[in-house]
């Protein structure tokens, strides 16, 4: 956190609300394009419902494919939010401030997308209610709580509800700002949401204490969600390479890796799209990249462990699977690409401060990471199924149909669309956190050097 440009609160308001109170030129065009793609995707989804899952490239025994991969991928992305806003809030990292809101929104929308994928994936979507709702009268039976697939909706639902409420609490002061800046219907809307916030000490104290409390509560949920998703795979004994105890932390750390990278991508886009150069500054990318380097290395360690202990058993089917996964075309190409994009290219780049503070490079490297992480999920899920059990007669290949590829593309459009719509109604960067850091930060002279300082209250 080096010398930062000191800005007044009016300036903060005017700049950070420029996406909400006025519309950027590119906004309508982008939204309409995305809307088109999204609608096409929804149409295709109904086509699939009508004709059945034959339209996908799935087969026997590759019963799970691109849909589940993408589901896991989006759940992974969703781990950005709490990672950033909770952990950094608890460790009082100053540079979190402009990042938090964006990360939380990313969490919420990617979770919404992730929740859609089991629906798309299921054979009889119109009966999915049997599974998602705890009770349903037509069938007179409750869901099987022993099934990891039932734990998934519970965990993801918890995470979604929790982070939405978290977001709302952190939004209230900014809603008050908007209430003071708008007129007419919108004012009414914000007035209701702001619930008559005035900003007296009691309310601010609740903001701070409540933020810490909610972070502490969200953290265990955040860890549990991806663990439970990973247990979908880990508990099945029939599939080689799935029945591994390391999956839970392995998935979580991988999720943090991809999620934080997604936040980097998003911040770069925000800086470019809304010209928030005074608030989203190179040093934020620097800090995120340093965090990512640590996370990525830990993740690589887990990958290594997973591989070692897969071979440790020395049983033939497992070794056959790994042999295919790593050495056989086309899997070997995917595996190479996964290693390169997931770690080998981006992380050494991040070792240089010149790269860390270069927004364009950070943007591209973070995108690279997410390609790698998507491939990781794909390489965990599909080869295991394709080389399932010692029955070599039933080994199958899997090539996704264009249908599945489009749904994958659709999910990205969907998330971006939701983001843009959100940005029209609520500020993407928390205003009051910015102002707070303005108030609390200062600089003292130690000898000749002018060192920036921050004022920290005594928490009780």
């Amino acid at each position: 956190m080096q010398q930062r440009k000191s800005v007044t609160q009016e300036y903060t308001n005017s700049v950070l609300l420029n996406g909400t109170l006025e519309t950027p030129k590119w906004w309508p065009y982008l939204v309409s394009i995305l809307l088109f793609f999204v609608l096409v995707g929804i149409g295709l989804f109904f086509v699939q419902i009508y004709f059945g899952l034959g339209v996908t490239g799935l087969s026997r025994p590759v019963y799970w494919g691109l849909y589940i991969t993408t589901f896991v991928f989006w759940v992974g992305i969703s781990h950005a939010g709490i990672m950033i806003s909770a952990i950094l809030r608890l460790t009082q990292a100053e540079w979190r401030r402009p990042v938090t809101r964006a990360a939380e929104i990313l969490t919420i929308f990617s979770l919404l997308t992730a929740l859609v994928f089991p629906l798309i994936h299921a054979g009889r979507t119109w009966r999915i209610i049997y599974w998602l709702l705890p009770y349903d009268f037509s069938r007179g039976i409750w869901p099987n709580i022993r099934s990891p697939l039932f734990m998934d909706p519970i965990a993801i639902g918890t995470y979604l509800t929790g982070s939405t409420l978290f977001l709302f609490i952190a939004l209230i002061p900014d809603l008050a700002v908007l209430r003071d800046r708008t007129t007419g219907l919108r004012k009414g809307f914000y007035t209701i949401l702001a619930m008559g916030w005035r900003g007296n000490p009691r309310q601010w104290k609740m903001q701070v204490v409540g933020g810490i409390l909610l972070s502490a509560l969200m953290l265990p949920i955040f860890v549990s969600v991806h663990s439970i998703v990973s247990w979908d795979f880990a508990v099945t004994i029939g599939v080689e390479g799935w029945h591994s105890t390391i999956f839970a932390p392995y998935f979580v750390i991988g999720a943090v890796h991809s999620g934080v990278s997604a936040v980097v991508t998003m911040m770069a886009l925000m800086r470019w799209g809304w010209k928030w150069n005074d608030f989203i500054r190179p040093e934020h990318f620097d800090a995120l990249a340093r965090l990512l380097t640590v996370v990525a290395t830990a993740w690589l360690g887990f990958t290594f462990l997973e591989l070692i202990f897969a071979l440790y058993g020395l049983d033939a089917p497992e070794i056959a699977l790994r042999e295919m996964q790593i050495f056989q075309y086309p899997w070997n190409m995917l595996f190479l690409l996964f290693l390169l994009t997931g770690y080998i290219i981006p992380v050494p780049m991040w070792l240089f401060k010149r790269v860390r503070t270069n927004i364009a490079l950070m943007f591209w490297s973070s995108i690279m990471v997410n390609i790698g992480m998507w491939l990781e999920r794909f390489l965990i899920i599909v080869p295991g199924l394709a080389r399932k059990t010692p029955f070599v007669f039933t080994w199958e290949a899997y090539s996704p149909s264009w249908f599945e590829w489009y749904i994958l593309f659709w999910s990205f459009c969907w998330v971006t669309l939701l983001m843009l719509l959100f940005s029209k109604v609520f500020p993407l960067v928390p205003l009051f956190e910015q102002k707070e850091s303005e108030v609390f930060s200062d600089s003292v002279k130690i000898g000749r050097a002018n060192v920036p300082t921050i004022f920290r209250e005594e928490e009780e």
Partner: protein
Amino acid sequence: MSKSILGLFLDPNSAADAMDGLKESGFEQGSFDVLTGTPYPEGAFGEHVPQHRLFRFPAFGAIIGFSASLFLTTATQLAYPLITGGKPILSIFAMLIIMYEMTMLSAVIFSVIGIIFESRLPNINPSAYDPRITEGYIGVVISVEDKDLNKAKAVFEKTGSEEVKVV
């Protein structure tokens, strides 16, 4: 009948002085309050630090969530004793996961309720307020009887407030 007066300040220190002035001129702590557009360190204006019972809410929520989920998971399995995969009818270790999630969920929900309640929101009839507060102005608001009106006004004038509004 009582009125509420709002004094707007640009400089935090003069706002703090105003608070002192009000104290000296014999208004009791509860009657006046400081409004800011950004969190200030606790007690920066010499206002009395608000007490709260926030941490009771999540505890309460956790208890409720735990017992509810315990009931739900047990009941579902006992109501439909279908054997799956030779697992026990009461598969505790599967139940634990769901109980954990539901406990956390209701803890979060209750602490959010707690935050809203403890910050006295929703505030149906907000007294004197000014949009400029969210632009960095600092508002000192006090509700007084008519007789003390001028006394309070004087304090604001003395400590150099930008504007004094009487509602």
